[in-house]
């Protein structure tokens, strides 16, 4: 019996381990490549097609587009990317339960909260890097495509914050989904839950009547979070951009706390 390790197994080892886990399954690479291809490539192409037919558009449409230049080059890419980010986030934990890997993981390091925090930290850094890279790439590609008809620049009011905010939104969404996956522990169920919340429930709350209905709608996790990449706020907005992101982060922190409690106490 040789002495293989010289110090206590700690958080740094877990960080390296989680990074290895993320980069050594093909689904991570493929999902991120697909996300970049669709949200930057396809959306730039669509932007380019619209610009080519600029003269055939009505002047109202032209004015609408010029008023919201980020609609095509940030909002749409984020809308597509969020689906992939949600799936990846869910799988960080749920895939371990679905495959049984979690039992190997927890045998190697039974201090469960550290394991979960390492997953959160590594995935947060990856999503932040990917999210910002994606939003800035989408912005510059889109700006170039639209330059003839809709000039837009990072120095315009609210633009830089929105492009940066898009990356932040995707990061928080990734962690929101990760927490969901850790609570549900079943890939298909958790993905259905997150996407149902983002795409259906959040939008349905707009139907709620009165002031309280408006508040519920505004405070729904992704409804609030989406404000992070809006250069201007609608006149009836209940939250500012940063408040919106804070509300979304608050929901995420709450879900992560529930996930941490369950991760620590449930049998693996």
């Amino acid at each position, binding site marked *: *019996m*040789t*002495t*293989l*390790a*010289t*110090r*206590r*197994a700690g958080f740094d*080892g*877990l960080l*390296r*381990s*989680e990074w*290895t*886990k993320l980069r*050594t*399954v*093909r*689904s991570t690479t493929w999902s991120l490549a697909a996300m970049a291809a669709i949200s930057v490539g396809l959306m730039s192409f669509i932007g380019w097609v619209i610009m080519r037919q600029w003269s055939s558009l009505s002047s109202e449409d032209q004015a609408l587009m010029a008023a919201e230049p980020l609609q095509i080059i940030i909002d749409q890419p984020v809308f597509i990317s969020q689906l992939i980010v949600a799936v990846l986030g869910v799988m960080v934990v749920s*895939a*371990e339960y679905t*495959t*049984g*890997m*979690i*039992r*190997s*993981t*927890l*045998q*190697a*390091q*039974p*201090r*469960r909260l550290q394991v979960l925090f390492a997953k959160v930290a590594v995935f947060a850094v990856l999503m932040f890097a990917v999210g910002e890279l994606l939003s800035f790439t989408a912005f510059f590609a889109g700006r170039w495509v639209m330059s003839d008809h809709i000039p837009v620049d990072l120095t315009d009011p609210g633009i830089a914050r929105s492009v940066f905010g898009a990356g932040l939104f995707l990061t928080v969404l990734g962690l929101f989904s990760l927490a969901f996956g850790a609570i549900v522990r079943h890939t298909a169920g958790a993905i259905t839950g997150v996407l149902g919340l983002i795409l259906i429930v959040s939008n349905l709350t707009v139907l709620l009547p009165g002031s309280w209905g408006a508040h519920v709608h505004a405070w729904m996790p992704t409804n609030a979070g989406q404000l992070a990449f809006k250069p201007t706020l609608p006149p009836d907005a209940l939250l500012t951009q940063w408040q919106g992101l804070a509300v979304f982060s608050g929901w995420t922190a709450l879900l992560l706390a529930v996930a941490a409690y369950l991760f620590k*106490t449930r*049998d*693996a």
Partner: protein
Amino acid sequence: MIEAVGLTKRYGDRVAVDQLSFTVKPGQVTGFLGPNGAGKSTTMRMILGLDAPTSGRVTIDGRPFARLDNPMLEVGALLDAKAIHGGRSAYHHLLCLAQTNNLPRRRVDEVLDIVGLTAVARKRSKGFSLGMGQRLGIATALLGDPRILMFDEPVNGLDPEGILWIRNLMKSLAAEGRTVFVSSHLMSEMALTADHLLVIGRGRMIADCTVKEFIERNSVLATRVRTSDAAALAALVRTAGGTAIDEDGALVVTDLPMHHIGDLAFDHGLRLHELAPVQASLEQAFMELTKDSVEYHGTLEPR
């Protein structure tokens, strides 16, 4: 050393593990024997902290598993070969686990070599056969070169060569002074590998003894006698207080020591052709012992 005190696990109304107290000592192979559903896997999962006991506790050298400084250096376990993400290669599966305990990369290559998976190390494990998956699970257990090894039904899915290999591996690990704890529902397997036995049924401890003691205690000792006049000897045995059953021309005598039978025959001038001890096989002993505690009885009656 693994030490369990009053270890109990309930799932709702069902008691999976009931007040188990035992120690598993280093330097020998300890077999953990019981029919399917007896609570072997649940006990092992509680040792590793995967499941929390309803009551009682289990410690590794006096500490709960989750408190160990370097868990992989203390305990390596093969619980089920499916605790693997099939999309990851064998090498990366082992690497990500090694990193948690700061183990060097070369150790990954070493264990792949030990279990004979070097050639397929870079292939995704979802394409592995049952036996290869089992070997990868064993590689995982050996990764930290741990002082305690646990194997849950390790021979499942292995071919004869693989079975021989894992038997020898377990014996050599124990010979190196390590604690080896291996579960099985096959008595015959345990007879070949284990030195000490823990036998459980329906979550309760039935026996905690050496394999030798287990056989001696649980095999019905009988004597098989062949003689020229079976009827005469049978009568003599019965008079002396024993029982004799005719079986294929031989007498099977119980409740009478072997030397006593020989003396009887000699005193009455009967020729003996055979005088041999009959031991119940381990399988029989085990079935006798656990017949009341088998969770799932087959319903098909033998014809």
